[in-house]
């Protein structure tokens, strides 16, 4: 592996976990794709052609520069441009916490894709719990914002997320909790700071 993807993996530890669940040459839709780094990574690692959806102007231009197919759309208004089952995998990487209408988006992801991969910062991580216990809103590597300037509107724990999946009738096929890029197997809701889920419709 070249130096660039290594650096990328260090910066975005969920990428490798996501890539493991993307099959070779799968059609991928990455929601909230930023500058297209994950799509570029998936193309290099899995030859998976994909589209990104992004709303931020600068990120969209960065995608074009990175030769990533990008669609400038607002995820809050749904995925109506995409036909049922038109993607193998729909990814929501560290974007869930910024979405207002999460239920609608989760349903849409599994309408458009056969599988969904969702990663998010785990609010149940012990350091977050500790900070709340000490009377402060958590600030960490995964949650770098202060309460007054955060773009995050819907923070949750892994348990919360699993409850939502149950409510929506979404089957969790696999899950992994990470901390500093390493897999956490003991008490993931306490020791995992980043959660990655592989979901399918029931």
């Amino acid at each position, binding site marked *: 592996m070249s130096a660039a993807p290594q650096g990328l993996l260090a910066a975005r530890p969920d990428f490798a976990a996501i890539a493991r669940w993307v099959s070779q040459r799968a059609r991928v839709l990455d929601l909230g794709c930023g500058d297209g780094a994950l799509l570029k990574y998936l193309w290099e690692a899995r030859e998976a052609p994909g*589209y990104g959806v992004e709303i931020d*102007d*600068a990120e*969209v*231009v960065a*995608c*074009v*520069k990175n*030769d*990533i*197919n*990008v*669609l*400038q*759309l607002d995820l809050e208004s749904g995925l*109506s*441009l*995409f*036909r049922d089952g*038109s993607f193998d995998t729909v990814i929501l990487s560290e974007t869930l916490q910024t979405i207002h209408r999460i239920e609608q988006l989760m349903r849409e992801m599994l309408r458009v894709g056969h599988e969904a991969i969702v990663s998010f910062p785990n609010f149940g991580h012990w350091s977050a719990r500790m900070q709340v216990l000490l009377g402060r809103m958590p600030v960490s590597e995964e949650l770098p914002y202060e309460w007054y300037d955060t773009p995050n509107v819907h923070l949750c724990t892994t348990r919360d997320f699993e409850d939502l999946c149950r409510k929506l009738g979404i089957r969790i096929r696999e899950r992994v909790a990470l901390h500093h890029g390493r897999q956490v197997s003991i008490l993931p809701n306490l020791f995992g700071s980043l959660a990655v889920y592989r979901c399918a419709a029931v």
Partner: protein
Amino acid sequence: MNAPHDSSSVGAVVAHKARFDEPIRLRGGAELPGFELAYETYGELNAARTNAVLVCHALNASHHVAGYYADRPEDIGWWDNLVGPGKPLDTRRFFVIGVNNLGGCHGSTGPMSLNPATGKPWGGDFPVVTVEDWVAAQARLADRLGIERFAAVMGGSLGAMQALQWSLAHPERIRHALVIAATAKLSAQNIAFNEVARQAITTDPDFHGGHYYDKGVVPVRGLRIARMIGHITYLSDEAMMGKFGRQLRRAALGFDFDIDFEVESYLRYQGDKFSTYFDANTYLRITKALDYFDPAADYGDDLAAAMARAKAAFLVVSFKSDWRFAPLRSREMVRALLDARKIVSYLEIDAPGGHDAFLMDDARYFGALRAYFGNIEL
């Protein structure tokens, strides 16, 4: 606007003419015995002939895309901010072609040309031309210039419809289509505005069924009203309000029918200017070409089915303040392209300029175009 001797200008340019003697059968059934196209080129065609970009014009523009004329330095090309050395469409890398469309009034064969059958100007007898006809004529020019395959065909508005049509009519001959501020078909409201413009022209007493050249008159009143209507649809309410507000042209309200407001003065000025350089017969035909364009019509209104044969990669751009061809129209094209499993990127730029935003240098928009062209391999 760039000063003529700006190092990012293509500099002084010369318009060329290409004559085609083979008759061309038009979509409407008429046949032209032959035709001429006025065109300009900027940059150099590379040895492999892989770097050609065709820039298609919209309603009122021409083949004069960039640069200026040595004897008229103030006559700067209509997309000069985009095309030039170091500009987003970089003429150090690309060979760029601008062409005046068939039926035009800037040098290509059109209503003002002589009808070989009568020896007089075609006038009202010049057939209605369509986007399909324009692309067919452009393809002959490409043949003439030795261009088998364009690196890209691009345009805004009606120009974008030509880029779209290129991808359908000649899928093998175009690698990228840049479809900006466009729609795959006009709405009833769009057609309605065009019809008002046409009525303004055809009811002008100086119109004479289009045979006004022999009479030494021009349907100026109709043409300027047509332009005024068009101009309103090119700007957003916000842009107009920002530019003119309710600013008065005179000290106080006049309580008569002279110009009170700045915006009235502006529209009159635009209308007057337009009527001095644009031909009414051409205007009528171009609005019809807009109305008739609908590539999905032959596919049961299924645009995805129509797009299936395209092979190009697409860049679709819309502007949020454009209510003439609103973002929704572009999203319909994007959806069809996705359904047809084409390569597409889509930008929705939050620029205030309305439909005309496609001509303006917005950092996000031009940044994306620069990046897109930068990634086109030669």
